[in-house]
């Protein structure tokens, strides 16, 4: 039996490094806003899955887009987005849910559908790791059982935390409102789940995401947009 799970997409930030003048979740990749790809994939994996988007910067634009294209997705508002970290948004989103488990997905992350399927239909706590590609990676240390036993900017190696976590909602609600990863330290070890992801922080990432996503669309013969 599947875990009772809902998804929080944290999309409150300024996206200043990308400098696109709009929330990163609305930046077009392959002709559609980034959040379109996330929500479409989630709906195709589980049409009933509950999703909450947390918005801050230009929240009316995010809400306007969802009203038009994904009206069943509510928006929690993080008015303190300039002074809080992603954990602040995650706690707000989780606060309106009732499921036992929460999957946290950053609004600037693309991952392929098979990986997302593993997150949605998996069991228990998991922490997402990917090959290091970002400029300021949160490195992860794994033990012999593929559990994450350490996280930090000073951890070397090939893997980084990609922002994905699957945790009991009760654990998430106890987070402080700053960055997520320091909140995770006291819950380690957590099972690692390796995913192929593209995080969009700057214009180079956007170019890379375009190529990456185009490849996935071709591979899946248009299923993304079906």
């Amino acid at each position, binding site marked *: 039996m599947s875990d009772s799970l809902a998804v929080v997409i944290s999309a409150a930030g300024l996206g200043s490094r990308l400098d696109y003048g709009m929330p990163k979740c609305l930046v077009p990749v392959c002709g559609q806003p980034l959040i379109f790809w996330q929500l479409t994939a989630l709906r195709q994996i589980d049409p009933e899955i509950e999703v909450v988007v947390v918005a801050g910067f230009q929240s009316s634009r995010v809400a306007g887009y969802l009203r038009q294209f994904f*009206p069943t997705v509510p928006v929690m*508002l993080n008015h303190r987005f300039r002074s809080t970290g992603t954990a602040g948004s995650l706690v*707000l989103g989780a606060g309106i849910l009732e499921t036992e488990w929460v999957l946290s997905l950053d609004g600037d992350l693309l991952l392929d559908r098979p990986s997302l399927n593993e997150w949605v239909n998996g069991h228990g706590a998991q922490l997402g790791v990917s090959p290091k590609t970002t400029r300021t990676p949160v490195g992860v240390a794994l033990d012999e059982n593929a559990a994450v036993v350490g996280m930090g900017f000073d951890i070397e190696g090939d893997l980084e935390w990609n922002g994905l976590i699957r945790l009991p909602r009760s654990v998430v609600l106890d987070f402080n409102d700053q960055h997520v990863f320091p909140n995770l330290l006291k819950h380690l070890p957590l099972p690692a789940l390796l995913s192929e992801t593209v995080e969009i922080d700057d214009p180079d990432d956007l170019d890379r995401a375009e190529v990456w996503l185009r490849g996935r669309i071709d591979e899946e013969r248009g299923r993304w947009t079906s």
Partner: protein
Amino acid sequence: MAPARVRRSEDAPTAYLFDFDGTLTREELLPRIAEQADVPEMADLTRRTVAGEIPFRESFRRRVEMLAEVPVDVVAAIVADVPVHERLMEWIVEHRDVCWVVTGNLDCWVGPWLDDWGLRSYTSKAVVRDGRATLLAGGILEKASVLSDFAGWRTVMVGDGANDAELVRDVDFGIATQLVHPAPEVLIECADCIVNDEETLCRILSRL
């Protein structure tokens, strides 16, 4: 850091407050009355009010004046036929002991509708003479003022307009709805949550 405002408290009952136009109804009431009662200048006034060119209180007073010649029972009949958000009304009727409608509309216009649904309310006040309404001095409802009646309650407000912003800001959990039109910026600035469809709204209300 759980968002305490979201969670139900065991110590305080929750009061659910609802705007009327565009929140419970599928159409804004005054333009509908203006159209059916043949007061064409109302549409322009409504447009300018929504655009923020005229303050709500001033706009409302002018709209009442425009409708002064329309018999109250004609207005009430138009209100009676206004389409509602049926799923939301079902939820409210199920929870009517803890629900209140908070509307700037005149008591004589919406009173029969509210009675039909068995709902308690806060409205603007008018005096009716010869079947016509005249706004009482100080009769325009200041929505935020209703909170003084809910000391000891946990409060939730649901609204869609700029004139709901203060109350949405002051309650424990404020919801901006976009069921009929996009929420105005001032409302979004004050709200905790934005909801776009009835079923989602009812689900969230049941958790608060």
